[in-house]
């Protein structure tokens, strides 16, 4: 596998876009840019699936399987059989 991060779960439906511009405001990686009629998906491969665009899109024109890209939490979840990993207050948390 050359690049595990080349594709992701981000899906954008320009038909549903109302051009409010919030997606290009909230995205920390410049995935969206403002366009003339609708938002432009300019660098989809930079998406880290944080989910901010989907959550803030009032037209529900963006879909993404959001989650935390943290191997520690995912491996721990796989070993303990618990459900989807999130950062916690425990000492082994991945977030600082």
């Amino acid at each position: 596998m050359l690049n595990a991060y080349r594709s992701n779960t981000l899906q954008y439906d320009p038909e549903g876009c109302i051009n409010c511009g919030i997606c290009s405001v909230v995205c920390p990686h410049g995935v969206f840019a403002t366009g003339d009629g609708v938002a432009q998906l300019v660098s989809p491969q930079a998406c880290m699936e944080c989910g901010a665009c989907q959550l803030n899109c009032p037209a529900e024109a963006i879909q993404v399987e959001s989650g935390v890209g943290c191997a520690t939490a995912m491996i721990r979840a796989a070993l303990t059989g618990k459900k989807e990993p999130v950062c916690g207050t425990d000492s082994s948390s991945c977030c600082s």
Partner: protein
Amino acid sequence: MSEYKTTAGTGDRIHPTTSTITFADHWGHFLARWGYRRGEHRVEPGLYGLGNPSPDSPVFVTANYTLSFDGLRSALAGFDGYILVLDTEGINVWCAAGKGTFGTDELVHRIELTGLKEIVSHRTLILPQLGAAGVSAHEVEKRSGFCIEYGPIRVADLPKYLETHEATPEMRRVTFTLRDRLVLIPVELTHVFPALVISGVGLFLLGGLLVSLAVVSAILAGVVLFPILLPWLPTPNFSTKGFILGGAVAIPFVLTAFLGHPQGAWWVKAGWVLMGILVLSSVTAFLALNFTGSTPFTSRSGVRREIFAYIPLMAVMFGTGLCMAVVFSLLRVWGGR
């Protein structure tokens, strides 16, 4: 630690605060960076008054993690305003947004609890941009009547942002500078500290100084060198970056082992070299993969692909190396090789 600053009993809904970071605050930040009492670096959730705020003053929203709250109030030196602190259980804004505690429900709840509507005359909240992963702006407006304005990612950009209330594209992009990566090293070290001590001492007793130093170096490469060198290591995947770094760190140790035994059979020496590279690079690669959660750019689907592709490879490499070590050690004991 006196980090849970309480003003209960003063009768005030608005807790006074300043932009001054005291020595005690700095010491608390230092301990937080070292992961000491990780979940306890909290401020009391609620409404804080910075300087002399009036009903027209802006309202800034943050998490109840000391580093988040202190970063915000110190960046706002000279400004009058309100700071609405959400209960994120002592977790920073972005991580808390990811798990939903810095979220729509908590924000709406905190607005009601503090009686913010009676305190300010306007209906605008300034949130850190990274809080957007947990907060739905239109949902908050519908439920509380407050409009959300997403400010810049970094508090350092706030004074500039407040001049126009327009963020530049740079203010909206997350970065991961050398400094950002360096501050993560202490907590990474505390995570591997038990493994470091056990393998360091255990392997010294079992295999001697060279073996012990080699494994300790591979672990330190994963948690210290890897964060520093991250942008310069070739290949996009963290695991392969780790294999490369671990392999490079292994070179001086396997060379020492190879050249240090000129009388040994060539295949025994080659075996030790191969074993060293297999074990050391898989250890570093595993730690490198675990650094994904500390970065601000790895996607969940990408990390999942990495785990499925490389964890089995790491396990096979480590297992093969370990088996070789046992066989060669037995050969050495029995055959004097």
